[in-house]
C-alpha cells in the first residue's frame, strides 16, 4: 500500500474511531469488546482499503453486523476478559441512565437496535442507514418506528 493511502487511512481511523467504538458499544454493552470489534473492523478496512468506496458506511456496516453475532460476542468477550483482566479502564463509566437507555435498545430485535443506534448515535439519515444495511428506506423507517414504539413502552414514556 502506498504511503499516501496509508496516510489517508490513518486520517480515516482517527476521524472515525470514537464514533465506531460508540456504535459497537451501544450494540454490545461492553466497551472492551466494542474496542476489539472496532479494531477488527479497521483492520479489515485496511486490507480492503483500495476497494472501499464509502469507508464511513462500510465500517459501520461491518461493526454493526459483528456486534450482532451473539456467538461471536460470547467468544470475544471471554477472550478479551482473559487478555485484559489486569488492565484498568481508561475512561469513566457512562452515566447510569444513559447506560440503561442503551441496554433497552439492545433488548430490541436486532435490526431495530441497529437502526436506532445508527439513527440517534450516529445521527445518520434514513437513506444512509438503508444504504449501509443494504435494505430499502421504507424498511429502515419501519424498524425505526417499531424501535421507538418498543423503547417507549419499555421506558414508560410517550412514544
Amino acid at each position: 500500500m502506498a504511503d499516501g493511502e496509508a496516510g489517508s487511512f490513518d486520517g480515516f481511523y482517527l476521524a472515525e474511531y470514537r464514533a465506531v467504538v460508540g456504535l459497537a458499544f451501544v450494540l454490545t454493552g461492553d466497551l472492551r469488546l466494542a474496542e476489539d470489534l472496532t479494531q477488527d473492523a479497521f483492520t479489515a478496512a485496511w486490507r480492503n482499503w483500495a476497494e472501499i468506496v464509502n469507508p464511513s458506511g462500510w465500517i459501520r456496516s461491518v461493526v454493526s453486523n459483528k456486534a450482532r453475532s451473539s456467538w461471536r460476542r460470547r467468544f470475544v468477550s471471554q477472550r478479551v476478559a482473559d487478555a485484559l483482566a489486569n488492565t484498568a479502564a481508561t475512561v469513566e463509566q457512562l452515566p447510569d441512565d444513559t447506560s440503561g437507555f442503551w441496554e433497552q435498545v439492545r433488548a430490541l430485535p436486532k435490526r431495530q437496535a441497529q437502526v436506532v443506534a445508527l439513527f440517534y448515535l450516529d445521527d445518520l439519515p434514513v437513506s444512509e442507514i438503508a444504504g449501509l444495511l443494504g435494505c430499502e428506506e421504507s424498511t429502515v423507517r419501519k424498524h425505526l418506528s417499531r424501535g421507538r414504539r418498543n423503547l417507549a413502552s419499555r421506558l414508560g414514556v410517550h412514544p
Partner: protein
Amino acid sequence: MSDIDTIARSHAAATRSWLEDLEPPPRRMDTPVVSGAADRRTVHPLAVRWSPVWAFAAAFVAVIAVGAAMVALTISRGSTDPAGLGLRPVDLGLGYVWSDESGSTSPEALGAAFATQVLGWDQAIVVNKDNADPAGPVWIQISQPDRQPIDMATSPDPEAGRVSLQIGEPSTIRAVIPGEPAGTRIGLVPYPGATSAEVTVRTFTSDTEIVFTADSDELEAGYVDTAEIPDAGQAGTVLVRYLDNNSDVITATGGYTDSPTPLAVTIAPDGGQTSAPTTVPADQRERYFMRLVILDGVATVDGDGVNSEVSDIAEGAIDARCATPAKSPVDELLDETEPAYQTANRILNSLSCDVSTMAVTIDEGGNATGVIGALDSQSVAQIQQVVGDEIEVEIDHADQ
C-alpha cells in the same frame, strides 16, 4: 413528559460526549489481535484430494460454471457447537453439499445418514422419489412424522461414494452492500414453526466453516447478514437448518456453487444481433445456487432426461427462468470459443422457452461458461433498458 425521540437524542448526545474521552489507540496493521477466524469456526483439518467429479455430477455442474477441475474434500469433523444450539456440526463439501463420512453409496443410505447426523431425525423414512436408476443422479425424499419432508438431489461420486447436490430449495447469497466487501447476506425462508435457523457456510478460501444463528426477526425479514464472510463471492456451500422452539430441526435447505468468482452476466442485447453486450457488474447481482430438475425417472449417464436450471426464492426476487428448453442439457449449446453475448444470442434463437430471458456466465476471457435464467432486480432493470419489451420476464415483487 419527554417523548422517546427527545430522550433518545439526549442519551445519544451524552454518549457522544462520553466518547470524546476515548483516545484512539495505535491502530492495528495487518495482523489483528483477535485470535483468528479459526477460533470462530468449526475447525476441521482437511486432507485434500483433488479429483474430477464424476461425469454425472459434471454434467449438472457444468451448466452454470465450467472450467477448473473440481475439488472433493475429505473432512474430519470437529466436535464444537459454535452456534450453541445443541446441533451436531456439519462438514460441508466443495462442489457438493454434503457426504456421509462412512461412504454411503445408495441414495437411500445417504438420505438416512443425513437424517440422523444432520437433522437429528430418528424415525426418518427415505424414498427414491422417481424410482430412478441409482447409477445416476437421483432425487430422494426424507420424511419424519411432524416434520416437513425434505427433497434431496444426490449423485454418485467416485471419492465420497454418494453426495448431496441440493437440499430442498437452496438459499441465496449476495453482498450486503453491492460493490463492497462488507459482508454476506444469506436468504432465509420463514417456514411455519421455525423460530431460528442455524446457517453453516463453507467458503472457497478456507478449510473451516462459518456457523451463525438467525433469529426470528431475521427469519421474518427473509435473510441474515454475516460480516464473517466479507466477500460474498467466496461463499461456496451453504446449509441452513431451521429450528423450532426446542431447537429441533424441522427442515433444512442447502446448495452449493462451484465458482469462487462472482459471476459476471452478459445479456444478449437483441436477439440475433451481435452488438456489444451489456454487462451487469458481478457485485450487483445475487449469486444463485444450482437447482436441479430431473425431468424423468431414468437419469442416464449421458444426461438424457436431465435438465438443470437455477432459481431464486429470495424475498422480492425475480424468477425469469427458461422453463422449457427444447434441448437438454442446455450446456450442449455452449461454445467456449465464442464471445458470451454471441452465445446468449444463439441460445435465445435456438431454444423454445416459456420465458425468453437468458444470460450466460463468462470466464476471464469473456467466453461463455454457463447459462442462467434467473436475475436480480438490478440486472433485469438493465436488461429492460437495453431490450425493452423484447425480453419477457416474470417479476415477483413479493413483500418489497
